[in-house]
């Protein structure tokens, strides 16, 4: 292995380097200077995000355990942008809440370490590698969920997350052992065509699926979601809801479409059923939520149901639309969580009723919130509409009209509860509204990027064309 082929891991190598630098930087700065650590972290990450857009070779490493190609590196870039936005928006919270405990640097170190795990997860072409990287991506997040050590709810979230993650990875690993027994290999490529329709392989598939379904929070594996999102610090909930979920969706898609293609008759009905169940349960629970973080938790459960619908087609269109949708979903959810987090940090308010009269005191934030929610609901001309429409197209291309119909009914239900937030912020007035406050520059930059992207990704079709062009399922 020479340096040239090692550069296939450019994303991972630079990110590791970045983490190491941050470890040193965190020691150097103390006291009030701790603030600077966060600026350095964000600046370095922004630089790294830019570098990662440079063209990358395609190929495999470590005997085929690690693969990179255009599709994978594009998806990594999307995740990079998402994490960059989350870091930008989190600085405000860090400085207000945790600076006094001298806890700044480790937030970014843990965040980036988890992202590193996600990257290995996406690139892995071997089940053992998959398992190890899944753990690498999960463990830092559990620490992050318990980051606010003086809040009982945050500690509770950390414990809940690590317990459910431990159980799910146990099931996951058990499933992998079955698959190994059935197919005789752990490499994705070797398993193609050698899994067969034995009870062993089907049980393996189902347990493997259940393990990933925990990460994607599909019903009935969603029970941890609302509690953890509510208890964890908002930037961490944000990360869990977008980055963690997207990476898991991506690898689930690849394993199902490639490794388990033989078992398509087994996992198609599973996806179909879970899709309907996830959409309905997520939406119905979201209807009654007052706490906005729980609200968004159930909304993100419902969104996962839509993604499963898009995956049913199991062809190039499905891969392209799912990646496209996840990219849009990342921006929409970051926008919604971002506004909620800013408001929570500044005023401590977190309930829908607290947002009464929000537009009249903070018009810009209210607009960002409305656009993000409309994007989640799928209202044109905001990107979410295009994402959803293509998911329907993908499902309808295989004749799943009934499922599409159920999904659009669900969109209407979801529109109702998204409009409840809009109603509070725009329609109502309050004697005790959230007071006007000014945001720092980084928060504003983050939110502006979100809004611009929400319009751009949808209306500017070359982005979709690009995603469509890099997708090549057979080549995985």
């Amino acid at each position, binding site marked *: 292995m020479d340096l040239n082929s090692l550069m296939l891991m450019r994303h991972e190598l630079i990110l590791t380097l970045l983490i190491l630098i941050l470890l040193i930087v965190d020691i150097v700065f103390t006291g009030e200077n701790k603030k600077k650590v966060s600026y350095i972290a964000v600046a370095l990450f922004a630089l790294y995000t830019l570098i990662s857009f440079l063209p990358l070779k395609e190929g495999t490493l470590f005997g085929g355990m690690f693969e990179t190609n255009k599709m994978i590196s594009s998806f990594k870039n999307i995740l990079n942008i998402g994490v960059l936005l989350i870091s930008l928006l989190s600085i405000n919270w860090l400085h207000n809440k945790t600076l006094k405990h001298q806890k700044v640097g480790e937030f970014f170190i843990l965040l980036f370490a988890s992202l590193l795990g996600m990257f290995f997860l996406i690139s892995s072409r071997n089940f053992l590698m998959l398992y190890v990287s899944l753990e690498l991506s999960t463990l830092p997040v559990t620490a992050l969920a318990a980051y606010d050590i003086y809040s009982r709810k945050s500690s509770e979230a950390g414990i809940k997350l690590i317990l459910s993650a431990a159980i799910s990875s146990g099931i996951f690993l058990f499933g992998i052992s079955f698959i190994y027994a059935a197919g005789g290999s752990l490499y994705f490529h070797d398993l193609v065509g050698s899994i067969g329709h034995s009870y062993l392989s089907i049980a393996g598939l189902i347990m493997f699926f259940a393990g990933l379904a925990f990460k994607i929070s599909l019903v009935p594996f969603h029970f941890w979601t609302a509690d953890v999102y509510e208890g964890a610090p908002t930037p961490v909930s944000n990360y869990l809801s977008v980055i963690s979920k997207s990476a898991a969706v991506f690898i689930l898609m690849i394993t199902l479409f490639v490794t388990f293609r033989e078992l398509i008759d087994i996992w198609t009905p599973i996806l179909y059923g879970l899709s309907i169940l996830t959409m309905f349960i997520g939406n119905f629970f979201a209807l009654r939520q007052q706490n906005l973080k729980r609200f968004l938790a159930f909304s993100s459960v419902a969104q996962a149901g839509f993604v499963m619908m898009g995956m049913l087609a199991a062809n190039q269109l499905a891969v*392209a639309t799912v990646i496209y949708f996840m990219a849009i979903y990342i921006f929409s959810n970051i926008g919604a969580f971002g506004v909620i987090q800013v408001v929570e940090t500044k005023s401590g308010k977190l309930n829908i009723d607290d947002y009464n009269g929000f537009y009249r005191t903070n018009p810009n934030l209210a607009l960002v919130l409305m656009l993000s929610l409309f994007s989640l609901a799928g209202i044109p*001309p905001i990107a979410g509409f295009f994402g959803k429409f293509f998911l329907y*197209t993908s499902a309808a291309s295989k004749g799943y009209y009934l499922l599409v119909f159920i999904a659009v009914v669900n969109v209407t239900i979801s529109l109702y509860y998204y*409009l409840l937030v*809009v109603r509070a912020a725009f329609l109502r007035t309050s004697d005790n509204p959230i007071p006007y406050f000014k945001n720092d520059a980084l928060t504003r930059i983050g939110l502006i990027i979100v809004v611009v992207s929400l319009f751009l990704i949808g209306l500017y079709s070359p982005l979709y064309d690009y995603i469509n062009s890099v997708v090549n399922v057979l080549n995985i």
Partner: protein
Amino acid sequence: MDILTLFVVIPVLTVVALVFSKGIKQHRVVALIGFIIQTLMSFNLIYQYLHERAAGNHDVMVFTKDVMWFAPMNIHYAIGVDGISVLMILLTSIIVLTGIFISWKVDDLPKEFFISLIVLASGVYGFFISVDLFTMFVFYEIAVIPMYLLIGIWGSGPREYAAMKLTIMLMGASALLLVGILGVYFNSNADGGALTFNIFEIAKVNIPVDAQKLFFPFLFIGFAVIGALFPFHTWSPDGHASAPTAVSMLHAGVLMKLGGYGIFRVAMYVMPAGAHYWANFFMVLAVIGVFYGALAAIKQKDLKYINAYSSVSHLGLVLLGLLMMNEIAWKGAMLQSLSHGFITALFFAMIGVIYGRTHTRIVTKMSGLLNVIPVAGALYVIAGMANLGLPGFSGFVAEMNIFVGAFQHADTFHRVITILAVSSIVVTAVYILRVVGMMLMGPTTPEFKNLPKISWYEKTGTYILVLFIVLIGVFPFWWGGIITDSIGPFIEKILTF
């Protein structure tokens, strides 16, 4: 930039200008200038269109433009107009322009009010110029969603409830629409071509009859909900009653027309076999709407509810005309869309004028208003007379065409339907004259002895509407001619499939 895309671009520019303007005076001047430009452009469009036709251009659509949008799915930004759409665009411009005059004094969040109104209008324009189903659907939803804010923020009465009901019902309808559109899309390669969203490409293909029977109701109901088809009309009375004046005008005058237009241009045009198969079933629903709407209007005490149910009744006639499947009825249906747009806008404008002075919309609480505000009273009478189909106004021309078309069917089923529909005119006369008699005639209610006179901006807005109502009534052949010109392709496709 082509002449049609400007109709979407100018509203966007107006919105940008509004964002940077300060104070209500600047806001309304910017909004007004924006829509004067739009109105002039609409006149110019009609002129150019007639010019093009006179020059011998007999394409189905003129001023077409086609830009690839999402290549992997063959989605295009495809636009073009025919005679029906240019008239609808004119209608939209006039209604929004008069709506801006009527809302001259909006005091709460004026900037946001005008922005929402203009975003809505741009969606409507986009809908009328699209010939690609995807583009059309995008614009349809853009037109629906500002309604939530417009009713919710500036409305009266149970505004939150009405806004939510309206939005959820219309978005639910668009859910049906979406399934229908996808169904059409994935059958558009039935003749071996590529999948396409373009209406005219699809129309060249013979979609399998089974698929037509399956997907026609999706498209039909999807569009018909916004056209207030019974039993999906329930959003309309609540929505109209709670909405501010200009929004009621725009909604009843323009937005509800998307229904009839969409059914004609999309549902019936691309799926003629489905249309024939389902025509009788939907005709029954339409005639129930016509009759039930008129009867319900009699029972109402609130002026806006009366007019909302009247709209349900009159738009039922549009659907009925479309389902009659012949040229005259279609022409009548399109004329009715146009005529009802102007009439109902005038109605809602006058209700707004009266409510602004008396602060009540309950008919029984007012009496003898004609003595106090004669101009407003007279305008209300004009709206009423036009609505019940008095010759000389637009309503007569439109309904006459629909009924003549309907009577061309000699079988019992059509006869019964037609007679029921025609007799609704009598009921219409009852509820119109009842209001005129109770509210405008008689001794003046003591507390309304001193009402302020109708102001210049209200006059300007309403006079424009009266002008168009009379123009259609007096020169029906000019308007009908433009429509008849464009019905040819529909006859070819739907009647001889």
